[in-house]
C-alpha cells in the first residue's frame, strides 16, 4: 500500500514536470519576453541588461529549473494583457469555477446514481425507457447548445432564472461565494444544470451497466438463494460492487467537468477561470495560459491520485496486501 502510494506520487511529479516543461516552452518561445518589459525604442544594451536580469542568457535547463521553482510558489509573472500578477487573477476567478464544478459534480452523482440503480432494477418499465431515451439525447447534444436552450426556455421565455453572472456574492476572506444569497443560488441553477447534464447521463448509464452486470454474478444469485431481502441484495451486496468502478470513472470525468466549465462559463458569462483562459487564448496571453494549464493539471493529478487511493481503500482485494495488489 505504501509502495503503491509512493509510486503514484512519483508518477504524478513526472506528469507535473512534463506539463511545466510545456508551460516553460510557451514562455520561452512564444514571442520575446523581453519585448513586454522594455520600451519599444530600447537599445541593444538595454535589452541585453533585461535579458541578463531575467536569466535568459543562461542554459535552457537552468531557466527551466528556475521556472519550476517559481511556478511551485505560484509565481507566473504578469499577464501580458493587463499587467496584473497571474496568480492574483486566478485566485480571483478560482472560487467561481470551484463552486460551479462542485455543484455540477454533486448534482450528477446525486441524480445519476439513483437513476442508474432505478433503470437497472426495472429494465423494462416505462420510466426506464423514457430515461434511456433522454440520456441518449443528453449524450448527443453539444453542451453549448444545451446551455442556449436552457437560457432560451428558462430566462428568455419563462423569465424564471438569470442567464448570466453569479448574482450577489459574499466575500469570506479571499473566497467569494454565491451560496449565501438567493440571487447567487438562482444564478447557479442553469450553469450547473448545463455542466452536469453530460456527466449525469454518463454516470446514470455507467451505474446501470455496472449494476446489471453485478446482478448477474454468482454471488448475487447465491445471496438470493440464501433468502436475503431484495433491499439488502440491491443496496448492500450489489451497490458496493457497482460503485467501485463508478468512482474511478467519476474521478476521471471530474477533469472533464473542469474543462467543460470553460464552455459553461462562456455561455453564462460566469466570471471563472475558464472565461479567463478563453480570453487568454484569444489574446495569446502566455502567462495566463501557462498558469491555467499548470493549475488545472495539478487539480487533475491530485484527483487521479486520490481516486486510485480511494479505489485501493474500497476494494478489499487491493487493500489487504500490497504484494497481491498487482495481481
Amino acid at each position, binding site marked *: 500500500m505504501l509502495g503503491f502510494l509512493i509510486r503514484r506520487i512519483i508518477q504524478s511529479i513526472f506528469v507535473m514536470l512534463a506539463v511545466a516543461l510545456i508551460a516553460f516552452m510557451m514562455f520561452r518561445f512564444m514571442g520575446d519576453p523581453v519585448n513586454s518589459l522594455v520600451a519599444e525604442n530600447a537599445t541593444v544594451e538595454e535589452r541585453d541588461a533585461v535579458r541578463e536580469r531575467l536569466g535568459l542568457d543562461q542554459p535552457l535547463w537552468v531557466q527551466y529549473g528556475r521556472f519550476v521553482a517559481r511556478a511551485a510558489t505560484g509565481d507566473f509573472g504578469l499577464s501580458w494583457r493587463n499587467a496584473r500578477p497571474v496568480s492574483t487573477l486566478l485566485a480571483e476567478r478560482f472560487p467561481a469555477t470551484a463552486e460551479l464544478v462542485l455543484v455540477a459534480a454533486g448534482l450528477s452523482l446525486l441524480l445519476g446514481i439513483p437513476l442508474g440503480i432505478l433503470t437497472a432494477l426495472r429494465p423494462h418499465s416505462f420510466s426506464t425507457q423514457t430515461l434511456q431515451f433522454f440520456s441518449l439525447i443528453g449524450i448527443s447534444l453539444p453542451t453549448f447548445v444545451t446551455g442556449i436552450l436552457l437560457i432560451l426556455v428558462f430566462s428568455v421565455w419563462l423569465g424564471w432564472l438569470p442567464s448570466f453572472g453569479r448574482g450577489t456574492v459574499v466575500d469570506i476572506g479571499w473566497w467569494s461565494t454565491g451560496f449565501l444569497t438567493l440571487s447567487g443560488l438562482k444564478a447557479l441553477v442553469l450553469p450547473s444544470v448545463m455542466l452536469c447534464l453530460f456527466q449525469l447521463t454518463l454516470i446514470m448509464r455507467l451505474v446501470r451497466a455496472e449494476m446489471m452486470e453485478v446482478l448477474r*454474478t*454468482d*454471488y448475487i*444469485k*447465491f*445471496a*438470493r*438463494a*440464501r*433468502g*436475503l*431481502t*431484495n433491499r*439488502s441484495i440491491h443496496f*448492500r*451486496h450489489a451497490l*458496493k*460492487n457497482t460503485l*467501485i468502478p463508478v468512482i474511478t470513472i467519476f474521478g476521471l470525468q471530474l477533469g472533464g467537468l473542469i474543462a467543460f466549465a470553460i464552455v459553461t462559463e462562456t455561455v453564462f458569462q460566469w466570471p471563472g477561470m475558464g472565461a479567463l483562459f478563453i480570453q487568454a487564448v484569444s489574446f495569446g496571453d502566455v502567462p495566463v495560459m501557462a498558469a491555467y494549464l499548470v493549475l488545472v493539471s495539478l487539480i487533475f493529478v491530485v484527483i487521479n491520485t486520490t481516486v486510485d487511493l480511494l479505489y485501493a481503500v*474500497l*476494494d*478489499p*482485494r487491493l487493500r*489487504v496486501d500490497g504484494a497481491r495488489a498487482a495481481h
Partner: protein
Amino acid sequence: MTILTVENLTVCFPGRRGTINAIEDVSLSVSAGEILGMVGESGAGKSMTGAAIIGLIEPPGRIAKGEIRLEGERIDNLRPEAMRRLRGRRIGAIFQDPLTSLNPVLTVGEQLIETIQTHLRLPRSQARERAIDWLRRVGIPAPEARIDTYPHQYSGGMRQRVVIALALCAEPQLVIADEPTTALDVSVQAQIIALLRKLARETGVAVILVTHDMGVIAETADRVAVMYAGRIVEIGEVADVLTAPKHPYTSGLMASIPRIGERPETLPQIEGAMPRPHARPEGCAFAPRCPHRMEICTRERPEPRGTLTRSVACHLTEEVPA
C-alpha cells in the same frame, strides 16, 4: 421422514420458437439425512430441477405443471416474499464455483451474520457466535480470527467450506448442492464430499446433490436419480442402480467410469449427443442413441414404472423392478 416431494414437475421457457420444456414430469422425494444424487449430462435438467425447488427459475421460465411439497406443504405456488423467507431458512443452496459465490467486498463474517440475522431473530453478538461456530463445523481453522477476513484470503477449498456454512447456517431441512466439487482440485473434492456427508448425518439435513460425476454419486449419495433430456430415466438406491442399472442410458454412464485396476484402451462412450430441448424426438428421447432400440421406442414415450424410490422409464423394463 420425507422432507421434499416433487411430483410431475414441468418447467417451461416461452421463447420465439415456441415454448420449450426444460424439464418434464420430474418426480422425486428425499428424506431427512438422506443424500439424493442427481446425475446426467449438462443440459439434462439437473440444475433446473434444483432451481425450481428453491424458486429461482430465471424469467421468463416458469413452473408449468406439477407440485413441490416441503414437509407436505406446497411451496411451488408461494408468493415471492414467502418464498424468499423460505430460502436459506428451510432450503439452502450450495453453488458450483466458490470463487464467484462469495461477495468480494464483504467479509465472510458479514455475509454469515447477515444470513443468520435475516432468518433467525438473534442479536448481533449471538449471530456472530453462531457464525464462528459454523465456520468451525465446516473445518475452517481459527474461525475467530478468520471470520473478519475477506473471501479472497481463502483458498478454493476453504471458500467452498464457507459457502457450505452459508447454506447451512440458518439450519434448513433441505440443501441443494449444485456441482459443489466440480470447480475444485481433485484432492479437495474428497474433503468437501466427506464434509457434506458428515453434516448430513449430524444435522439430519436432506441433500440433493447435483453432479455429472458418477464417481461422486457412488461415494456420497444414498439414492440416485439419473436425468436425460429433461426427464428422470431411472431412480433408486445407489447400490442397486450402480450394480444393476435398468436403463440403457444408466448402463452407458456406468460403463464410462474408469475403474481402478482396469485399464481399458479407450473409455466406452455413448454414441451421439443428447437432443436439445427444442429437438426432442417423439418417443423415448434416448432412442436415437440406444443400443437396445425397439420399434416402440421411436413411437411411444416410456412412462416411469415403479415407485418414487425405485423406478425406470424404459420399454425394456416390463415390470416393476424388485
